[in-house]
């Protein structure tokens, strides 16, 4: 059994989730290859090598949306029983879907752990906001595709190792590969990034308006924290998608997570419940967020936050 790890290459190098998955693959043992997509560099390949890839298959699809070409190329590499890891990110999911459809392989999504025992591969995922764990085994033939939740594994570089790099020619995928990227935009957020922040101050619909959401940003500024938000807040256009925490946004595990006016829908809990310490402020005593909070404050964010900000400023 070979393990392939999908690695999206960004301007800053391989995606963080690819390094997490490579570390897991390395620990599972066996032959580990990265399938790297994007503009490559020796530094990026070396990073993949240090995290466990002995081989890197590199595909640069240029300005094509990469899923169709990546899936077609991967389909030619993966064999019966091979394990293929993808992250729960936009491009990874797209490639996993195309590859599954192409090969007829089973795909198990939302994995928080992968277990290999003998010839069998089991995947653990969380349902119902993380309150229930489900273990599923692959039973059929063909490659086994797993889509992994970010932060399920910790990325750790091993000894530096220069992997063997194979350049993969861009396959002709006809109509299905016809989508083109005409421009790329980064939405800069101020302060530390959500993925790396030790402290996150996050806001929900309870803030009431984009203007009042400013309290979250103000508190984050004082604490040197990153700003997060729920899907409802992002959908309302108060803040960009890049700060969304939850199932359809980012998964975070900071030391301290301060949830302001967040009720704790399952969609949100699954993205933050593994934070070390959780502080929640919400008016509704019955809000599900209190079930995961180490300190739950039943109160109005519009009262508590200004006082907290003032007290911190006075220190």
């Amino acid at each position, binding site marked *: 059994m070979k393990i392939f790890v999908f690695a999206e290459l960004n301007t800053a190098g391989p995606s963080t989730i690819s390094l997490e998955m490579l570390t897991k693959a390395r620990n599972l043992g066996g032959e580990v290859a990265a399938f790297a997509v994007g503009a490559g560099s020796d530094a990026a390949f070396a990073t993949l090598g240090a995290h466990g890839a002995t081989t890197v298959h590199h595909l640069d699809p240029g300005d094509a949306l990469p899923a169709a070409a990546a899936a077609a190329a991967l389909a030619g590499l993966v064999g019966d029983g091979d394990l293929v890891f993808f992250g729960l*990110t936009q491009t990874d999911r*797209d490639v996993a*879907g195309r590859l599954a459809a192409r090969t007829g392989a089973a795909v198990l999504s939302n994995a928080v752990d992968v277990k290999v025992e003998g010839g069998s591969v089991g995947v653990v995922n969380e349902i119902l906001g993380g309150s229930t764990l489900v273990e599923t085994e692959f039973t059929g033939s063909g490659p086994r595709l797993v889509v992994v939740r970010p932060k399920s594994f910790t990325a750790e570089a091993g000894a530096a190792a220069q992997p063997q790099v194979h350049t993969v020619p861009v396959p002709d995928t006809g109509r299905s590969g016809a989508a083109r990227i005409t421009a790329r935009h980064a939405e800069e957020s101020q302060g530390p990034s959500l993925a790396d922040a030790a402290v996150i101050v996050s806001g929900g619909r309870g803030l009431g308006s984009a203007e009042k959401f400013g309290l979250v940003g103000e508190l984050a500024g004082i604490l040197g924290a990153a700003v997060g938000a729920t899907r409802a807040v992002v959908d309302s256009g108060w803040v960009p998608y890049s700060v969304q925490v939850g199932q359809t946004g980012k998964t975070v595990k900071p030391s301290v997570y301060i949830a302001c006016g967040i009720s704790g829908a399952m*969609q949100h809990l699954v993205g933050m419940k593994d934070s070390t310490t959780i502080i929640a*402020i919400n008016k509704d005593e019955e809000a599900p967020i209190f079930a995961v909070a180490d*300190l739950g404050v039943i109160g*109005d964010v519009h*009262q508590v936050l200004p006082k907290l900000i003032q007290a911190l400023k006075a220190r």
Partner: protein
Amino acid sequence: MKIAVCVKQIPDPATPYTLDPATHFVVRPAEQVLDDTDRYGIELGLQLAEATSGSVTLVSMGPAGNLQGIRQALAMGADKAVVVSDPALRGSGAAVTARVLAAAIAREGFDLVVTGTESTDGYSGVMPQMLAELLDLPALTFARKVSLEGTTIRVERQTAAGYDEVESALPVLISVTSGAVEPRYPTFKGIMQAKQKPVDQPTVADLGLDAAAVGAAGSGQSITAVRPAPERAGGVKIKDEGEAHLEIIKVLERTKVI
């Protein structure tokens, strides 16, 4: 323009779903609701159909039940629905679901296929590109903004860092994020009309698929265990009487944030 919009009936999220203890499959009551995130795809479909004098067909797979969720979608203005409801489909994984939906969409014919990014009960998040691959279509996924110019679709595609501008000629598949458009509320007239709109319920055989290759048997996976996740140690809950911020400060001090 002929538009197919994929939708799903799910157990009401207000009351968390349960798993059948024997099969571990989600228990699906007769009364299911429209997955709320599907409203964005329906709205986009309706807007593009209105702009092109086109039509919107809803395509769904799963136990039909009393079709409450499908009627909710029709009430927004879709013209008709195809619901593939067949006991043989019980336990189908994502790959089987994609084959069934693709067959139903192909049978209807289309210029554009619209989906959400993931369902609220299953969350596999891989269905849109699976459908695109099976239908030999380019896929403009995670669209947060969509425009049609002639026969070219342009979208802003969400990325981890921000967004990309992406385009393709029709026919194409689009997956829309929630927030991409503002879903309309059904009117009273729409709700009344929805009761009369055609809902086709083909079987697997009607779509030309082999019943033995779908359902749990054709899905290459088996749930082996379901167990509660380790619980977090219970926390402290206090009511704000004007001084709660001081308790927050104590926690911030204890955790060395300040």
